């Protein structure tokens, strides 16, 4: 009987496997940031414990840091204290830290892949739910709480119950003008916000194989928005080509050894999943969320749903969402005006995302009264974008161009959406209050966000007058 990719990675990391007990799983890479780690380090100190493998632990600061002028001290005293605590902890426990002055600083889920640290077959954890992003490389990657952060720091292992497996077979090709973000939002919209709870997803099929690494990261990133423990895509030539030559990727004979191992990382043909679903990529359209969870989403040419037409058990939660969002039933999505536009986050802030958004923006101006900002996912992404002149395209159009961080995805710094303001956002969560108290978030792709910034309302980016867009890969 064949094995799934998940099962193969699981077995390779089993340290202890006893009946009626959770398995003890070895962790290959532990990513740490300022928000979910201070209490874990404090726990180590209280018990006089060490970090077992500082060489498999990497820290950065991304959540609560400012994205404006980095030469000034952090104004928010509590955030400053949190950032300083990370500096102290990394120094005391011997952990590599990309601080605000580091050329490698950025969102934790952007930096590890771009440096070649994230690799196929690894187990990766971080005190952050979007750790699922790294599954794009065929790594088993998932978010953990702070108690588990402490457990991994002290033992380099985690107690885990095996998840059920779910295959999502994405058939056909994504239509021109639609993106990986539209694909994953369509899947969540069809099956629901908690559909995959208890499962590890493996995304398979032609449409997935045709995605770039950046696009695969967008898909896996949002696995958690279906409730999945993790999302996986088996590594292939696209993965290997992306990794080759990256700073921390193996070189020479090590590369060959790694490659031999990585090539074994796919689900065997006779393996079975606990659940398998087929999804047709060919009908995907540009998506916009209308509600307060990522499953509340429609195509750009559709309308806000009418709760009156829905069954009683759904009615109330939809009315509540529409009330919060300030939307009338049956409003066409193209008539929804925006106040803010945010291009960034661990979902969509990589160089390809910025290139695609810039292609839409080029030669246009941000609509009057719209505030738009671009926050690159890392300082390396920022540097690359500047080398390509993308910053100038955004700046000339009236966007702000910031330093790397999580920024307005969750507004832990001062990048906030105001009460009742409406934001087109390339991030991953449209929860109540996520981007600010009473803020109204609409999740979209970078191209859709860029077009909304110019038009002042949502538009069908497939009809956008740019010749660049037709090339798909700008």
């Amino acid at each position, binding site marked *: 009987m064949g094995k799934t990719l998940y099962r193969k990675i699981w077995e390779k990391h089993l340290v202890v496997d006893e009946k009626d007990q959770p398995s003890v799983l070895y962790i290959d890479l532990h990513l740490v940031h300022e928000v979910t780690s201070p209490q874990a380090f404090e726990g180590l100190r209280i018990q006089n414990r060490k970090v077992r493998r500082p060489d498999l632990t990497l820290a950065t600061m991304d959540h609560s840091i400012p994205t404006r002028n980095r030469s000034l001290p952090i104004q928010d005293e509590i955030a400053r204290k949190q950032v300083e605590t990370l500096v102290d902890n990394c120094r005391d426990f011997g952990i590599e830290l990309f601080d605000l002055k580091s050329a490698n600083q950025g969102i934790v889920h952007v930096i590890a892949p771009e440096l070649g640290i994230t690799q196929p077959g690894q187990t990766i954890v971080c005190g952050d739910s979007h750790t699922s992003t790294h599954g794009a490389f065929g790594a088993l990657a998932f978010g953990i709480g702070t108690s588990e952060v402490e457990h991994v720091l002290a033992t380099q292992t985690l107690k885990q119950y095996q998840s059920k497996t779910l295959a999502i077979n994405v058939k056909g090709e994504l239509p021109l003008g639609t993106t990986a973000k539209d694909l994953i939002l369509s899947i969540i919209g069809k099956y629901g916000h908690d559909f995959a709870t208890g499962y590890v997803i493996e995304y398979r099929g032609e449409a997935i194989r045709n995605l770039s690494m950046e696009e695969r990261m967008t898909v896996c990133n949002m696995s*958690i928005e279906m409730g999945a423990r993790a999302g996986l895509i088996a590594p292939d030539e696209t993965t290997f080509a992306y990794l080759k030559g990256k700073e921390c990727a193996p070189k020479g004979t090590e590369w060959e050894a790694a490659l031999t191992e990585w090539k074994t990382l796919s689900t065997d043909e006779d393996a079975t999943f606990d659940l398998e679903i087929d999804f047709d990529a060919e009908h995907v359209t540009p998506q916009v969320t209308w509600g307060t969870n990522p499953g509340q989403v429609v195509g750009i040419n559709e309308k806000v749903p009418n709760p009156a037409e829905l069954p009683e058990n759904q009615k109330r939660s939809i009315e509540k969402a529409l009330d919060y969002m300030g939307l009338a039933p049956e409003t066409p999505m193209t008539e929804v005006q925006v106040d803010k536009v945010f291009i960034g986050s661990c979902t969509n802030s990589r160089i390809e995302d910025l290139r695609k958004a810039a292609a839409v923006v080029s030669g246009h101006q941000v609509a009057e009264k719209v505030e738009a900002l671009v926050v690159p996912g890392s300082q390396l992404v920022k540097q690359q974008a500047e080398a390509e002149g993308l910053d100038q395209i955004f700046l000339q159009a009236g966007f702000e161009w910031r330093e790397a961080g999580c920024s307005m995805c969750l507004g832990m710094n001062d990048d906030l959406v105001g009460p009742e303001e409406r934001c087109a956002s390339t991030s991953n969560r449209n929860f109540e209050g996520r981007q600010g108290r009473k803020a109204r978030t609409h999740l979209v792709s970078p191209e859709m966000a860029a077009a909304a910034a110019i038009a002042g309302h949502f538009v069908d980016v497939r009809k956008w007058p740019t010749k660049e867009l037709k090339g798909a890969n700008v």
Partner: protein
Amino acid sequence: MQSFTTVTGVVAPLDAVNVDTDAIIPKQFLKRIERKGFGQFLFYDWRYENGQEKPEFVLNKEPYRNAPILLTRKNFGCGSSREHAPWALSEFGIRVILAPSFADIFHNNCFKNGILPIVLPEEVIQSLFQQAETQPGFELSVDLASQSVKGANGFKASFEIAPYRKQLLLEGLDEVGATLKAEDRITEFEEKHKVFYQLSF
């Protein structure tokens, strides 16, 4: 960690699906570096308006201000992995959460913080909502050892829990310490396990 044996008390009905951890503890309170002090910010945007309590929110009403049991709908605790959510619930006094389903990371985090998340079928949850909403002061009694929930009116339900998690709650176990007892196994594993990267900057 606080151990858990039995809890008897008022059931606070929070009638909302997909309650996410951003709602449980909004991001502006995540900058603190301590484990304590989050209870005051629990459900902040639902509980307060301009610093004043919103009288209509369930936990601002008597007898729910001191309720140890929270009754809610499916997918409770979805979203962010922030353990600040169970820290805030625990400090507020919540020891048991009853729902048809929980989000994975939140569910896991509860056991590390002396909170017992209990999954009951949708129709049982629905009937508990009816009782909690029509009988102010409706109480339940939860016993972890026998894995049962009981009401004075004869309500009775049993629930599943993994043996390890049950032990973790009953004993308030130090998990890190327990794993470190098998440290030799970890060392042995490391000797034959290989990673293909080096962090040297």
